[in-house]
């Protein structure tokens, strides 16, 4: 205990260097913990994009691709599912509910998704959370649209705002469905998932947009069908892009998956969202690991900075060592003194780093949630973070042995002679 007091007093005598060293360690610790937090929160929010869905069904392609376009609204489907296939699968005895998804249009860069009422009652995200409306209600009329929270905020849309959908998924489209404008009937509460950036309309709405299209082009002249004329037509879709399935019993998942994959009508693919999410995350985790590695290197730099600060101080402290030796300190005491010093610096660095992290989180929390849908709770350090911090302490302990060993040698050689 007395040695620790000596170490601390010796450090306070070299206040400026000690503070700078602590600051360097603190900043690197903050960086490491921030990366770790963002990493685990991103992972959690990624995994909570969809829940409660047992199977996602789409045209046969890769499972990651299917997940990307059906859940994340990234990329496009290679093919569609015929409407009667949808009917066949959704009426299987094991199937509890089915949500049809029809993609392909957009509005100012936001994807448009055709679906039906089952979406609002069965779709789940996060920990079994249901979609809810902050304003308005689900689509009712053919030309009603329900928009996600981000769209409402970014485009400043309110209930009743009219919007013209564009053909294709790009931000800039040359072909607009200007003849059939939609009206905002509801705005969803923020979910932190791609739902926030989606415009939801009915399957019939999607059908109405394209009812008079021929060979991927809008019809001209007499073939043109006006918005009101479209209401009179049979708007049962001929195809959809994908569907989400909920089963009565989870145990049937594999059986239904096999049934879909062996579906005779057309080549289809059924994936389990959890498995596909895992697969996708392992692709993304390369970047995540690189980020982590870089921040770990920054911590190492901080520790090496401390090492050089202590090593640099050794020569001017040989007198101090000789005095301690003369009053009975063993070389081992000198060794411990330096290790304790390094540990004190690192521990203060870690504490300050944690303080900076929480301060930063507290300041950035609202912005992160609004801008990126990342909710960063101000919780206690997680077990993984504690392990990281322990690893930092251990690393500093090992590094501290270098100057400590040198001081030990010096103490043995110098003995009681005071070098000036």
């Amino acid at each position, binding site marked *: 205990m*007395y040695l620790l007091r*000596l170490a601390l*007093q*010796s450090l*306070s*005598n070299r206040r400026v260097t000690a503070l700078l060293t602590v600051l360097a360690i603190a900043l690197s610790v903050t960086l490491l913990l921030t990366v770790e937090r963002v990493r685990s929160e991103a992972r959690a929010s990624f995994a909570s994009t969809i829940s409660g869905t047992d199977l996602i069904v789409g045209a046969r392609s890769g499972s990651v691709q299917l997940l990307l376009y059906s859940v994340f609204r990234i990329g496009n489907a290679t093919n569609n599912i015929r409407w009667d296939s949808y009917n066949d699968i959704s009426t299987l005895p094991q199937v509890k509910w089915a949500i049809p998804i029809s993609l392909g249009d957009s509005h100012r860069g936001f994807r448009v998704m055709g679906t039906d009422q089952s979406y609002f009652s069965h779709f789940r995200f996060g920990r079994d959370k249901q979609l809810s409306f902050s304003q308005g209600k689900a689509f009712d009329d053919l030309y009603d649209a329900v928009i996600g929270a981000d769209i409402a905020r970014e485009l400043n849309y309110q209930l009743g705002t009219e919007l013209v959908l564009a053909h294709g998924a790009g931000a800039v489209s040359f072909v607009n469905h200007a003849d059939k404008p939609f009206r905002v009937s509801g705005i969803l509460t923020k979910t932190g998932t791609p739902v926030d950036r989606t415009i939801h309309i009915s399957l019939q709405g999607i059908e109405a947009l394209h009812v008079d299209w021929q060979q991927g082009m809008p019809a001209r002249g007499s073939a043109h069908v006006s918005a009101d004329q479209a209401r009179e037509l049979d708007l049962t879709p001929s195809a959809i892009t994908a569907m989400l399935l909920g089963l009565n019993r989870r145990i049937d998942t594999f059986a239904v998956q096999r049934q879909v994959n062996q579906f005779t009508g057309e080549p289809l693919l059924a994936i389990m969202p959890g498995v596909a999410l895992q697969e996708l995350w392992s692709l993304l985790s390369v970047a995540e690991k690189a980020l982590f590695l870089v921040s770990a290197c920054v911590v190492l730099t901080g520790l090496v900075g401390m090492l050089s600060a202590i090593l640099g101080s050794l020569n001017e402290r040989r*007198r*101090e060592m*000789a*005095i*301690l*030796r*003369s*009053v*009975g*300190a*063993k*070389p*081992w*005491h000198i060794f411990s003194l330096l290790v304790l010093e390094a540990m004190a610096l690192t521990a203060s660095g870690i504490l300050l780093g944690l303080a900076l992290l929480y301060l930063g989180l507290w300041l950035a929390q609202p912005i992160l949630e609004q801008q990126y849908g990342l909710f960063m709770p101000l919780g206690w350090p997680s077990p993984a973070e504690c392990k990281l911090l322990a690893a930092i302490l251990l690393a500093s302990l090992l590094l501290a042995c270098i100057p400590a060993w040198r001081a030990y040698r010096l103490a043995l050689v110098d*003995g*009681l*002679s*005071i070098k*000036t």
Partner: protein
Amino acid sequence: MTRPLLELNDLRFAWPKQPVLLDIAHFALQPGERLFLKGPSGSGKTTLLGLLGGVHLPQQGEVTLLGQSLSELSARQRDRFRAEHSGYIFQMFNLLPYLSVLDNVLLPCRFAQQRRQRAEQRHGSLNAAAIHLLQGLGLNDPALLSRPATALSIGQQQRVAAARALIGSPELVIADEPTSALDADSREAFIKLLFAECAEAGSSLLFVSHDTALAPLFDRSLALPELNRAALAEVN
């Protein structure tokens, strides 16, 4: 004749790959004796002090303190033995700059159990022992105790160092040129205070210096170069 406190017999020492630096046939310090050892710089003075403190071991012969041969002890035991039975005063910068005056004086008690107990028995508490010593050495101001060591003048620092060497009444006090940074007047005053305190603590004093003007103040005086056969051999 009583057993000497400190005795050197047939001692030879050389640093690795260097000629023999010290070759002393016999040297003894009696209990309570105040000995002046004249040693010009480069005469192996510092090395001798290292040998007396058991920090280094001679290649031949032995150093005996209180009847205990230092060579028979392990390095750990020698560190312990040194701390329990001897106090050191160096040339200058004796004090740890980051400790208060009081903590500097008490430093040996943190490492030497017996000295701690002796100080407590004699004065009731460690602080009382330190204050008593400091007062004896002319540092009466109680505000001084908590002041950092660096805030003191050099003369004051040397007196604090003397108090540190004397706390817990070690049998031997070794002073290595403690007065070289002081002016002539304070030199004598310092030595007289040191004598008085050594007498009170019952400690022998081995005073090493190149300043022969101080020699008459002591019970006895010796010159290291005359003692050291290695140096004689070199001169001849």
